[in-house]
């Protein structure tokens, strides 16, 4: 499957130059950029691992691309996303979110149905990628 979270997942993967352009747009708006990664893209997995703190004082979008590439070197088989945070009153939230890296294999999700009374069904979504024990998933690669 192809995970379609984010602003641009239905388009061809962004090139490095395109990532920089999007970063430049965020900086023009006065937003702060951040990079996060995970091996578990469950849609309710809100807190991906932070690749450092948001880059509040970044001025040049080349800095974003540098961090994205550093993160890619360490986590080539993980999902990596770029976020833009807006601290303005009335928002104080995320304003941009797009993926910049995917694992070669995207195993997707299992939909578990548990049947209740009155035909009601409760649905549970499980990430195939998160089936391995955490100790194995987060072991440092040599």
């Amino acid at each position: 499957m192809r995970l379609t979270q984010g602003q641009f997942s239905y388009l061809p993967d962004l090139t490095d130059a395109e990532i920089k352009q999007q970063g430049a747009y965020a900086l023009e708006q006065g937003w702060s950029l951040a990079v996060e990664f995970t091996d578990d893209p469950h849609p309710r997995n809100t807190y991906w691992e932070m690749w450092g703190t948001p880059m509040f004082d970044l001025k040049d979008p080349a800095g974003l691309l540098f961090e994205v590439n550093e993160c890619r070197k360490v986590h080539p088989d993980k999902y990596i996303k770029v976020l833009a945070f807006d601290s303005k009153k009335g928002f104080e939230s995320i304003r941009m979110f797009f993926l910049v890296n995917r694992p070669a294999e995207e195993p997707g999700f299992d939909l578990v149905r548990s049947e209740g009374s009155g035909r009601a069904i409760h649905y549970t979504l499980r990430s195939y990628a998160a089936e391995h024990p955490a100790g194995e998933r987060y072991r440092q690669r040599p």
Partner: protein
Amino acid sequence: MNKLVTPKITDAKKRFQSGVLQYKQMGYWAPDYEPKDSDILAVFRITPQDGVDPEEAAAAVAGESSTATWTVVWTDRLTDYSHYQAKAYRLDPVPGTPGQYFAYIAYDLDLFEEGSIANLTASIIGNVFGFKPLKALRLEDMRLPISYLKTFQGPPTGIVVERERLNCYGRPLLGATMKPKLGLSGRNYGRVVYEALMGGLDFTKDDENINSQPFMHWRDRYLYCMEGVNKAIARTGEMKGHYLNVTAATMEDMYERAEFAKELGSVIIMIDLVIGYTAIQSISKWARRNDMILHLHRAGHSTYTRQKNHGVSFRVIAKWMRMAGVDHIHAGTVVGKLEGDPNVIRGIYDTCRETDVPQNFQHGIFFDQPWASLKKMMPVASGGIHAGQMHQLITYLGEDVVLQFGGGTIGHPMGIQAGATANRVALEAIIKARNEGKDIWREGPQLLANAAKTCTPLRAALDTWKDVTFDYASTDSVDFVPTPVPAV
């Protein structure tokens, strides 16, 4: 009411002699009155009957929407009556429209019950709209003071939290109303939901008149829709939802349906404007308690919002709905099949989404309106729009909006999933180009054509609907000349 105009009577004995006085004489015309920050202000477009003095007509509107009756009553003297009288404080001829006037009226806060749209509207659009000396009357705009706004809950979720729940940022949300709107069985209906969400939409939607009819009862619909929603979530990894319409005959029925939607894990429910202000406020409180996004379909509004000379403008309805508390509100498309002048729509979108809306006559906004941290409503653009208009939609409507392509998804020649994908690709391509600094208004058609090179469904959508536009004159436009005298 005769043409002879006399000023306000200040001598109490004369003022309260039994009989009939002009509204002006009773004190409802007060051109020297300075509105207080805590006053509720309204501007009406009045069309007095032939021979009726416009100032007297404005005073009559103030009187009939507050304390007055047709004759003098001595019981006024038991009250601090001048405090309770609404005051018409300003009257402007409508530019270019002889016989019509904008009448500004101030109401003291004590005239209203806290937190009740029903009470507010019972005065402001109550008996006064049938008042004989007026040919027509339209409520154009209102200024709600912060002190009054703070007695309302407002939207249960708001744009920011809705996006956080859906994990969707930086682009409009995409939706579609299920078609045909009537006649599908629950099982077939859920199929359309699944296909549309699987193709790339964030939301699908019940239509306003889908409740619990013989062809599809509500429980059946909810169960099949949630199967479609969850299956599409599992296949894409994205949060999605279907607006389950809980509109029903009684509040008890509505709560039952809302509870079932919650039990099934739906993130959103839906109501129709026709259920009434009190029912909307009730279900809004339920939605806040249960972390449910609340979608409002504005069914019925065009009966009173569309004609310029009589009724209530939609910008006022939008204000009341932000107070009553809904998260989504249908607010016009500009380019689609339904009524929508670009300036009027801009004023309505600002009313939904901004934390402070400054006076802007060109957009139909007569007053500064700070929103006192009431959450923001997500406007919904729906009705006769398609992928080929994406650059126009984003230019007019921005990114905090739900774009709903019903026919433009389900009518796609390659099927529903393809229709949804065409819309999603068009949307992402235009947002990406906008962020890259491209002029999407001019380059839009070329940008879409380029995106279609790697997306056959988009190519098919562009070819199928390339000439479809709804280019008719709006009936509700703004009467405005660019040198206004500031109000208040």
